[in-house]
């Protein structure tokens, strides 16, 4: 359980990045934090893994105040994959990169091997195990960063812009994988601008603007609310835009999934064509 309680955060340069943010995330939940560039999304998730500490208010991870533990201790529980993989990668080969944290956490060599193998297979990176991460494409580097965090099996996984540079098959794989993690009662938090990915996954949405949480709730409710979405510099998913225009024909407007849309339309159109 993650509890963010009335958190304010001001960067040393005086920029107030979080203003009175409160949020609860239960175990096994899937949450997407969305909103405009500079809204404070990354600042917020860096509070959950303890990289940043609140200027005011507090953050509790499993009832532990993040100011009372080291980032290293928290890291075992909270895995964080940076937006820009290059800020995270430093090893000479993909395999070393993925092994690094495991060794640091004191896993035995056999366990390290096994987990690295597992993570590389999972993210379709096994053929690159002896390659330098910097020889890979942006999308592949992103997957290396993800593999190195998943390898140590954290209970809370934070992914900052996980779909950048990923093609549709990899996105689908990521979606399946997040579902799996949720089934194992693991919490997944993503920060993303990828509205169509979110429409496919339908996580709980936390919408931010200018350091504040302006709305949270089910994806189909939040992402079909035109005013809210505009305020946060987001756009409606394509399917929601279609149904917004179709409302004069008596359709519901809270639809974001393409298959649900298809079934609803079939009921009406099926007789007419």
């Amino acid at each position: 359980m993650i509890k963010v309680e009335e958190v304010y955060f001001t960067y040393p340069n005086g920029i107030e990045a979080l203003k009175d943010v409160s949020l609860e995330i239960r175990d096994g939940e899937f949450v997407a934090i969305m909103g405009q560039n500079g809204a404070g999304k990354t600042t917020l998730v860096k509070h959950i893994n303890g990289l940043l500490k609140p200027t005011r208010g507090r953050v509790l991870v499993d009832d532990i105040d993040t100011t009372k533990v080291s980032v290293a201790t928290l890291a075992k529980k909270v895995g964080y994959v940076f937006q820009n993989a290059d800020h995270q990668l430093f090893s000479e080969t993909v395999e070393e990169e993925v092994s690094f944290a495991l060794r640091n956490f004191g896993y035995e060599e056999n366990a390290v091997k096994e987990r690295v193998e597992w993570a590389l297979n999972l993210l379709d990176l096994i053929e690159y195990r002896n390659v330098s991460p910097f020889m890979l494409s942006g999308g592949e580097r992103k997957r290396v960063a993800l593999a190195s965090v998943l390898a140590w099996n954290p209970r809370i996984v934070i992914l900052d812009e996980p779909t950048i540079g990923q093609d549709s098959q990899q996105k689908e794989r990521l979606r399946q994988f997040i579902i799996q993690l949720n089934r194992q009662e693991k919490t997944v938090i993503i920060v993303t601008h990828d509205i169509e990915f979110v429409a496919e996954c339908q996580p709980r949405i936390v919408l931010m603007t200018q350091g504040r949480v302006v709305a949270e709730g089910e994806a189909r409710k939040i992402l079909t609310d035109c005013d809210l979405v505009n305020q946060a510099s987001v756009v409606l998913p394509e399917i929601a835009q279609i149904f917004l225009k179709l409302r004069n024909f008596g359709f519901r407007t809270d639809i974001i999934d393409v298959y649900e849309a298809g079934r609803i339309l079939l009921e009406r159109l099926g007789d007419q064509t």
Partner: protein
Amino acid sequence: MIIEAKGLTYTYPIGAKPAFEDVTINVEKGEFVLLSGPSGCGKTTLVRCFNGLIPHFYGGKLEGEIRVVGLQVTEHPIHELAQHVGMVFQNPENQLFALSVEKDVAFGLENLGLPREDIRNRVDWALETTGISDLRDRAPYELSGGQQQRVAIASVLAMKPEVIVLDEPTSFLDPQGAKQIFEVIRNLNKDLGITIVLVEHRLDLTAKYADRVMVMDKGRVVLDGGPREVFSSEEARLIGVGIPKATRLYQFLKTEGTNLGKVPLSSEEAYQAIAEVLNT
């Protein structure tokens, strides 16, 4: 023909196998081309040939022929090709370095040795065309991601290139910022006749602007045609191209026996087609 590649094959210096192979494409002046395909398919590598980054900067082995604006790429240096082909990358931060927006946009022009007056005029024009005249004295690092990407586009535009290549230019932008960037690009194409090559995975926002879609897979161009034709093809689905939601909805309905007629590329087109059926 503004870009002509014939039997083009390229291998990076450390590469065991070619990054792309036997690519033959023709892009006409004024076209808006969307280049897509699974990650690692070679699309970014291919566009690096368009301004000579390959082979002049990256080295490696380039075989076959490539001409851009009539110039044989292997025979002309990057700085010469850059006057004809502008490049905009994923992360604007990597492209901006000056202390003010104005200086960033003027940089390339100063290197060309243009007279002061010309530089001023071109900078003014580029800032206005991309809608950022009011940001000219600001430092790029204090701007939002969307604003930064517009500065990057303005810097490229100021060189008055015939072709602009953009490699996932909106990945780091919020959805509204992304939409505005795509509108700027569309205007450069429609109003100024600049040829656009846009490398993208996310096709929901961009399919409607494209005259043509090329899809690469495993180093080869496997599909090349109009967007409606390409996105509704079985091959595109199998390769795993991010087919626009509006097109997928059309396909779903079609498989279930309901045909909307023309293949829609955007929510607007899908709505029109559905409304038409409902109104009859």
